[in-house]
């Protein structure tokens, strides 16, 4: 059976005047209805580019999709012409961006922006789109929606703006919602409200949620499965409980050990030495080996294949089995 959304062996590079940055180097994952998959990674790991490639909004050039497939309900979106792709992806996959203030147009009223997709795609009249926009705003719990539908983005607080973004993404009733760092710019109490809302919408509508984030805390609270990204690859993929309990990749383990905990007293943090690799010069072998506490000579030479491990988990580490058995 095919998955709702499946990405297969996606390769994306960015060509600049003097170098080629290998941003995605074989990314594969899938997500099904009602499920939350988290793409977890640090800056430059390729998580946002993955989302942009799925949405077909990569700036080309400099970006270039070298190979791979993005299958939505079994159809490869990348193989279609742009116009067809828009129809095929169409209402099916929507995205919420990180920074709601810059993603919203400051000179249009929010109701107009929420209703835009409805007017363009479904041919709704202005009045009907406006009514639907109010309903959507109520749905994402914006108080006094009817009174605020004609306000401008700057008149909303950060949390409310993110709700407007979510209302806009929901307008066409997508089956997959991609949320790129939806709460990074928000305070913790507001972050909790927005994550609640996303969870509730997922359950009500049976949407698939792809959550892109660097925050280990947020992931632990909402994800079903996690794909950890490093240097344009998914290095580990597992059920959230299994991954936090026993990581099967040294990078995941190091990440978990490097964050201070709210409920635990501080011994010195175990920082990860060094820096993520320059994507124009990814080291040979395993890209994590220069920073890895477990590297062996093999890691310098051979790129680890993705191993299937018990419990349906995946790890791209030569020593994954040892990590799990230890």
């Amino acid at each position: 059976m095919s998955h709702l959304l499946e990405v297969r062996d996606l390769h994306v590079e960015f060509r600049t005047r003097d170098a080629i940055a290998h941003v995605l180097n074989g990314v594969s994952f899938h997500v099904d209805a009602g499920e939350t998959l988290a793409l977890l990674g640090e800056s430059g790991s390729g998580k946002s580019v993955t989302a942009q490639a799925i949405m077909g909004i990569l700036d080309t050039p400099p970006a270039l999709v070298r190979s791979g497939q993005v299958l939505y309900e079994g159809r490869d979106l990348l193989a279609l012409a742009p116009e067809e792709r828009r129809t095929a992806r169409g209402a099916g996959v929507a995205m919420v961006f990180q920074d709601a203030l810059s993603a919203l147009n400051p000179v249009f009223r929010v109701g107009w922006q929420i209703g835009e997709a409805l007017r363009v795609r479904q041919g709704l009249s202005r009045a009907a789109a406006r009514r639907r926009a109010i309903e959507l705003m109520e749905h994402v719990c914006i108080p006094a929606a009817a009174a605020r539908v004609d306000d401008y983005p700057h008149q909303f607080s950060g949390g409310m703006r993110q709700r407007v973004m979510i209302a806009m993404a929901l307008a066409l009733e997508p089956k997959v919602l991609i949320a790129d760092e939806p709460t990074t710019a928000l305070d913790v109490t507001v972050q909790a409200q927005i994550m609640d809302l996303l969870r509730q919408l997922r359950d009500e509508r049976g949407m698939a949620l792809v959550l892109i984030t660097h925050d280990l805390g947020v992931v632990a609270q909402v994800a079903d499965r996690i794909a950890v990204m490093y240097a344009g690859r998914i290095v580990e993929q597992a059920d959230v409980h299994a991954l936090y309990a026993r990581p099967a990749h040294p990078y995941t383990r190091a990440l978990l050990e490097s964050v201070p905990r709210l409920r635990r007293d501080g011994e010195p943090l175990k920082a990860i030495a060094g820096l993520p690799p320059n994507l124009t010069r990814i080291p040979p072998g395993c890209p994590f080996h220069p920073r890895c506490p477990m590297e062996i000579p093999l890691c310098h030479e051979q790129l680890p294949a993705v191993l299937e491990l018990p419990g349906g988990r995946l790890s791209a580490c030569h020593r994954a089995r040892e990590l799990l058995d230890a």
Partner: protein
Amino acid sequence: MLEVRGLVKHFPIERGVVFRSAVGQVKAVDGVSFTLARGETLGIVGESGCGKSTLARLLLRLEPATAGAALLDGRDIFAMQGAELVAYRRQVQMVMQDPYTSLNPRMTVGDIIGEPFEIHPEVLPKRARAARVRELLDLVGLSPEHIDRYPHQFSGGQRQRIGIARALALEPRLVVCDEPVSALDVSIQAQVINLLEKLQAQLGLSYIFIAHDLSVVRHISDRVAVMYLGRIVETGTVEDIYQHATHPYTQALLSAAPEPDPALRGGSRIIRLEGDVPSPANPPSGCRFRTRCWKAQQRCSQEEPALIARRPEGPTQLSACHFASETIDPPR
């Protein structure tokens, strides 16, 4: 060493282009008091708009205070002038949040870290400065050979190290860190936190560590102050605040912080606060948190709660809630 008493900063809201008149006040910091000892770290947490960054600017005397005092070794910093003020600025330095915008892209690292010596030339003769800059680079874990490089040649974490080296150049006693790690990746964040701790132990620094990340603050602080709408609502040792919080706002903030542990998930853990933070131009009467508080009663709107010890077992813990000792189940 540092004692802050009833510090207030109001910014006027002005109307009119030619005839400006103040039509209101943004009460950014509205009566903040605390003390800080040598070698101690005070963490200040709160959400955006609570006044924590304004507080930092006041302590650096980048802004004049509207009222109140801050005493360093018993001398009010807002009364200082001339040579005394210059000496004060040497003793108190700052590490900024954003390592991408707080370093001048047209200056070399050597010039950036050496700039404090241009402003305070009495500290070090010119010929000794290059050597001192190299020492500072080494101290923060950067290669002294990178002295002639420019900021864009460094990663975010390395840039933050440059910012720290600049702050340490004049051998300050107090360093105010305003969200020093929030722009950094998780794996880099730990490196910078460890560096700050190492430097504190080595140089006997005091830190005021402003952040919104409660886990980071817990890790690095000795004492913590929680701010809401320009006031400290609760303060105490790390243990007081993280294990025995009595103020509803502190409790809500702690409950909402996402823990990296899926075993702790579940909707009932998080206290749901309603609405947004009110405007600091027109804060609620009485207790400022009452509009979002599940414990609020008539008294809260009439009488402002004092920041006093309210838990018999925790004499170091001060809380500004009338009902600190009463248990009322929060909305979850």
